[in-house]
């Protein structure tokens, strides 16, 4: 919370940290990346979509069971069952509703990719993806939560960006630069939480220090894409890689903010996710993390491009001499 009295210096630093002026490049990366992710998410699940989300007795499990479990947390969490009920009023069957939902989600992914009706597409994509993730809650894994989070931030972000067709052809004005900065900060801080917690939890397990967890992760189905015989050849490297993963993740919230170490940390974390994706078959998970990292700390962080926005500058009472990246004094680790 911003203290209003007694600490004007602190208030200024918090404002500077939360509302740096930024370009919209990162938002374009997030939009295009999430558009691509939503598109491949729907395409990958096409053959099993009905099987996963059908009602009791028709599919692999039961959509109603997942929805009942989500309703235990809260009855107002969106679910595919809402759309099926709605379709029932219009005499549209369950199969047709599921097909329409799938087609809509695919269309929203493509619209986000191109930047057409960005805000509407982001809201609908978030809603439909959330419905699918909650109705299939028993089948969900980490990538689903990250996609929901990404779409949640995207729909609240100051869309459109300059690379979207909305801006180029419909001439929709860009928003205030400090708003771009705020939402990038949200994503940046979120990534710091993700890696710090992930790194800390790994450090608390003995298996990450002696390489056994890495061995087990890479040999357990369905992640066993590499032959164990190949892994055995690199057995002396496994503890080093395991410890490196712990340190890279745990150190992320510190070293990613420091200009000198940012690039190397970013490269390490991107390489880690690329290897996870290729070696374990977690393509969607790897892609979502790569997109988040590129949007949060990749584009426009190391150099200082000029902020160009159509919107009149909002008087924040602050001066922003360096509009890109983290200014001295804006880091949470500066006093």
């Amino acid at each position: 919370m911003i203290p209003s009295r007694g600490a004007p210096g602190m208030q200024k630093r918090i404002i500077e940290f939360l509302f740096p002026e930024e370009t919209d490049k990162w938002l374009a990366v997030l939009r295009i990346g999430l558009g691509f992710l939503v598109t491949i998410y729907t395409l990958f699940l096409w053959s099993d979509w009905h099987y996963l989300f059908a009602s009791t007795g028709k599919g692999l499990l039961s959509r109603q069971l997942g929805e009942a479990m989500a309703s235990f947390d809260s009855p107002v969490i969106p679910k595919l069952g809402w759309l099926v009920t709605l379709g029932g009023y219009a005499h549209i069957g369950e199969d047709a509703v599921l097909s329409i939902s799938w087609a809509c989600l695919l269309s929203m992914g493509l619209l986000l990719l191109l930047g057409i009706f960005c805000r509407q597409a982001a809201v609908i994509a978030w809603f439909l993806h959330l419905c699918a993730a909650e109705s299939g809650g028993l089948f969900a894994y980490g990538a689903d939560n990250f996609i929901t989070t990404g779409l949640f931030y995207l729909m609240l972000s100051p869309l459109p960006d300059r690379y979207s067709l909305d801006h180029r052809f419909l001439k929709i004005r860009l928003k205030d630069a400090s708003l771009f900065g705020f939402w990038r900060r949200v994503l940046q801080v979120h990534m710091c939480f993700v890696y710090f917690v992930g790194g800390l939890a790994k450090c608390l397990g003995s298996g990450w220090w002696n390489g056994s967890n890495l061995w087990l992760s890479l040999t357990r189905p369905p992640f066993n894409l590499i032959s164990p015989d190949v892994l055995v050849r690199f057995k002396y490297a496994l503890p080093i890689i395991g410890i490196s993963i712990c340190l890279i993740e745990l150190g992320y919230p510190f070293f990613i903010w420091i200009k000198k170490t940012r690039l190397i940390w970013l490269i390490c974390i991107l390489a880690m996710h690329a290897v996870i994706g290729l070696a374990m078959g977690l393509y969607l998970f790897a892609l979502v993390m790569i997109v988040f990292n590129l949007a949060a700390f990749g584009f426009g962080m190391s150099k200082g491009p000029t902020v160009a926005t159509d919107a009149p500058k909002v008087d924040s009472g602050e001066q922003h001499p360096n509009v890109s990246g983290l200014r001295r004094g804006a880091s949470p680790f500066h006093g």
Partner: protein
Amino acid sequence: MPSKRIYASWFTAHFFLLAAVCAAGIFSLVAQGSTILPSTLEGCAHKAELVAAFILGKEAGASSPVRQGIATYLHAAGIQTGYTFFAPNIPGYHKLTLELYYPDGTVEYDSPHVSGKAAALRLASLLDRLADERYEPVREVVVKMLVLSVWRERPEVKKVRAIFGTVSSPDITDFEHGRGESFQPMFSYDFSVREGDTHDDAHIP
């Protein structure tokens, strides 16, 4: 642009909740004794986990608007679970084997399956969840539905025994000595056809 105070307030509340979710996840691991930390910390971790649960409204009644409001927000933002992936240690994976008994005495083995690799990953995630104590109340109904999915493809089958268990992979030294995976059954259920319906008996070894 709306007041920066509103944005700042949302930022604080959002990350406060995320911190509570993440803390609850970490404290839960420590409280379960699955970390390298000394066991004397387990009691403290359990208390800290309860504090985090209280912050998230989980100690309130199921119909509490505060609890439901927080839960809805967490799900909407995709932050209802922490980020303790593949940590602190990697457990064995889980397998559901179905013994299909035909009227002529033939026995076949199968397991629930999906078409695509993306869905196969989700099926593995479901099986790992079933082993979790928190999912104990829904285990039987989930297994029954998975059995039904296979039964629909083979309506002539008269009885199905579903055996769920953990598969422990060998460590690298054991693998080098030629040891393979080992299967430890956790529970099993028998399902049989009874006039158009199924009858089930649970066997928990």
